[in-house]
């Protein structure tokens, strides 16, 4: 639940009334932001939540007087204290931005100038807004870095953005934003690109700074877990309009607007759904092991990316491999599918040794293990129609041309897409639909094992939920074994029978899903669980 409420000041520091921002012609709707009104008091965190394309970023850009190229503020007013911002001259804006109102961004690494040291970029804020000697500026910058809980401030100040991790860069950006102790801080999806553990630390930092300096914070995100962690008040946006606004606890527990309810429902919770309600056609056959991996390892020079991984996967069951980026889980997937050559270990598929196959036999027997990918846009050849892709897969699996066409239509139907999709190119589909096509293509080979490498992380909550349902349905209908690679414990909890946690190329814990989530043995698993935002939502 939200941290203890802070005594809020009566008068709002920032008031937005009827703000309207127009989209360029040819966009799918006329207005990015449609008549939005909200206010923000010092020390308060107002979360603006909505799916991508709801206009929340356009709103933040408009408030800062620097809308994204192509967008134009066409109405309404934004008042900071007594000052009306919409009619300010550019010179006046330069005195306000960074001093009284500051912003932090989604892509930490890309938001810092790559050719200037981090320290210099922080000192620049003092140069712009305060009269200080260079030594004093340097001293203040180092103090700021230290206050961001960053180790060795001197080294950090002297290094370049690409030499720091995502989390460190975000802390630097926050330091830059809070250098002049601004009254208002706008945070546009600050933790989306970060690891779960880093995200938790950054959120904690923001809450402490709010408590310390009484900033008014406008926090923009699409992740309800984060909202639950941090928000005092919540505003839900859809198609440029605020559909609901109110106290965090109220909006989370008794959402009034149906859209809010829909969003909340789509958030996967850590509690796995009850097993019984699934229409099980093929009972999970724990005796038949379709995939057995033993001692698999891969090293790039000194770095051991995958270190002695062993597990096995039974027909009709799902095993999730959970870990933060860089723990080697994707490399593991690529090793199994023979996209990369391992430096050791065995992989057996339906009993036969998969690694020793070469050339023609490999191509013949590779249908047993199929893969679906993370980036929906990159997983399909933009120039070929959906039908052609799936038919080709069917032909490769042995069907002749005529039956391949029919098989493609049947597979599309099975993944819940209309037959007309056969003749359209991938560009005409949404991210979720593209993943379905990927699944259809994999199924064309009628594989025994389906590996999903982060296939859900690029989708928004509602599409994620639909794909999870589809996978569960396919498993029960076809007896498919699924190996799910993900960084999101809650997604793992929703679908897997067993969960393995990976860190630094090793499996640190493996066991039935319910046991790993409720009584984790390994400390790293416990840390992962605690960092998962929105525990309060359960």
């Amino acid at each position: 639940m939200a941290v203890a409420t802070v005594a809020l000041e009566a008068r709002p520091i920032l008031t937005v009334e009827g703000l309207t921002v127009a989209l360029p012609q040819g966009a799918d709707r006329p207005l990015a932001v449609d008549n939005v009104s909200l206010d923000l008091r010092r020390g308060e965190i107002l979360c603006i939540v909505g799916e991508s394309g709801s206009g929340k970023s356009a709103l933040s850009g408009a408030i800062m007087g620097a809308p994204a190229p192509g967008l134009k503020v066409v109405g309404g007013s934004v008042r900071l204290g007594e000052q009306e911002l919409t009619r300010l001259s550019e010179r006046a804006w330069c005195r306000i931005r960074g001093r009284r109102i500051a912003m932090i961004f989604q892509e930490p690494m890309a938001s810092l100038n790559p050719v200037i040291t981090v320290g210099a970029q922080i000192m620049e804020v003092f140069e712009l807004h305060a009269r200080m000697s260079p030594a004093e500026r340097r001293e203040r910058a180092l103090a700021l870095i230290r206050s961001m809980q960053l180790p060795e401030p001197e080294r950090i100040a002297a290094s370049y953005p690409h030499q720091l991790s995502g989390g460190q860069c975000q802390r630097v950006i926050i330091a830059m934003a809070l250098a002049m102790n601004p009254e208002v801080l706008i945070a546009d999806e600050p933790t989306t690109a970060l690891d779960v553990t880093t995200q938790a630390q950054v959120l904690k930092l923001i809450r402490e700074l709010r408590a310390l300096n009484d900033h008014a914070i406008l926090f923009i995100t699409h992740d309800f877990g984060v909202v639950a962690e941090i928000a005092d008040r919540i505003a839900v946006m859809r198609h440029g309009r605020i559909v609901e606004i109110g106290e965090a606890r109220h909006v989370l527990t008794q959402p009034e607007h149906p859209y809010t309810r829909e969003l909340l429902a789509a958030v996967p919770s850590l509690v796995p759904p009850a097993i019984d309600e699934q229409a099980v056609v093929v009972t999970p056959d724990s005796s038949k092991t379709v995939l057995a991996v033993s001692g698999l390892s891969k090293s790039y020079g000194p770095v051991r990316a995958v270190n002695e991984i062993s597990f096995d996967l039974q027909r009709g069951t799902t095993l999730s491999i959970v870990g933060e980026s860089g723990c080697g889980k994707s490399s593991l997937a690529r090793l199994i599918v023979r996209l990369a050559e391992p430096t050791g270990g065995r992989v057996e598929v339906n009993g036969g040794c998969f690694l020793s196959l070469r050339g023609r036999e490999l191509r013949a027997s590779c249908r047993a293990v199929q893969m679906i990918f993370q980036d929906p846009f990159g997983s399909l050849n933009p120039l070929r129609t959906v039908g052609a892709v799936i038919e080709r897969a069917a032909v490769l699996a042995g069907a002749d041309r005529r039956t391949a066409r029919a098989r493609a239509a049947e597979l599309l139907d099975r993944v819940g897409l209309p037959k007309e999709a056969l003749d359209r190119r991938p560009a005409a589909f949404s991210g979720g639909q593209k993943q379905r096509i990927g699944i259809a293509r994999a199924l064309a080979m009628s594989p025994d094992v389906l590996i999903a490498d982060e296939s859900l992380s690029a989708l928004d909550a509602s599409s994620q939920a639909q794909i999870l349902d589809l996978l569960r349905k396919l498993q029960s209908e076809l007896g498919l074994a699924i190996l799910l690679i993900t960084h999101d414990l809650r997604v793992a909890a929703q679908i897997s029978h067993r969960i393995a946690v990976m860190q630094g190329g090793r499996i640190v814990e493996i066991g039935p899903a319910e046991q790993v989530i409720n009584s984790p043995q390994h400390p790293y698993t416990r840390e992962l669980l605690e960092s998962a935002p929105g525990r309060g939502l359960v």
Partner: protein
Amino acid sequence: MSVRYAWLKSLARPTAAIGALLVVGWLLVALLSRVLAPHDPLHSMIPLMTPGARGPDGAVFWLGTDALGRDVLSRLIFGARTVVVVATAATLTAYAVGISTGLLAGYFRGRVDTALSFFANVILSFPVLVLYIVIIVALGASAANVVLAVTFGSAPAIFRIVRAITIDLRSRDFIAAAITQGESTWRILLVEILPNSSGALIVDFCLRLGYSAITMGVLGFLGLGLPPPTPDWGGMVNEGRTMAFAFPHLVLFPCLALSSLVLGLSLLADGLRQSAGRMRRVG
């Protein structure tokens, strides 16, 4: 908006439209050269007549005649055919070589890539002019040698472009999917990778055509180009250059023709690059 419409939409941009107009214009002139040319380009009449002068039999020479009394306008028109045919042939051969080696190097990497890249580097640092002269002296000046010489000059650059694109596309997931489904390497190269690089390649093809036309001009200018009396713009500039200051029309019109063709190709390439760029962002 499917890919096919993207091309048409890109031509709506002003620069690309003008470019397309110029290029198609010269293509038509090349195709209909026999019909359009008022006189036989090789037939000598009254030498060095100024543009617009009227011949004895009343025929007007819009662009005047050259030192040998041949009609400059007809030679320009037939010259268009020579440039279009030879430059296209040269660019296509350079592309055939460049694409095949680029795909192999980009896809297989490793020793194949190092060897081909090294060889491309060698050819790029080879003084191409020495090669032109030796080929033309050894095998005699002919259209085939100009094609050979231009191919040698352009292939390494195309190799590099295709290699870079292949390396980028190879890391995409739809290629990994094809590999895991047991697709044959050749189909991956020709069906999955090559079509996706067509956007950048078509842009470069237009530029490369312009470059080949200029190279033919330079060869003609240095006296190493096509043998007389083939009407070829570079050769016309070379023949007319000595009298250029007294009879500017001998040099002015071939240079304008060559520049306008190359300009058209560059504008077209620029327009296509914008649309390809926009497509990449939308895709």
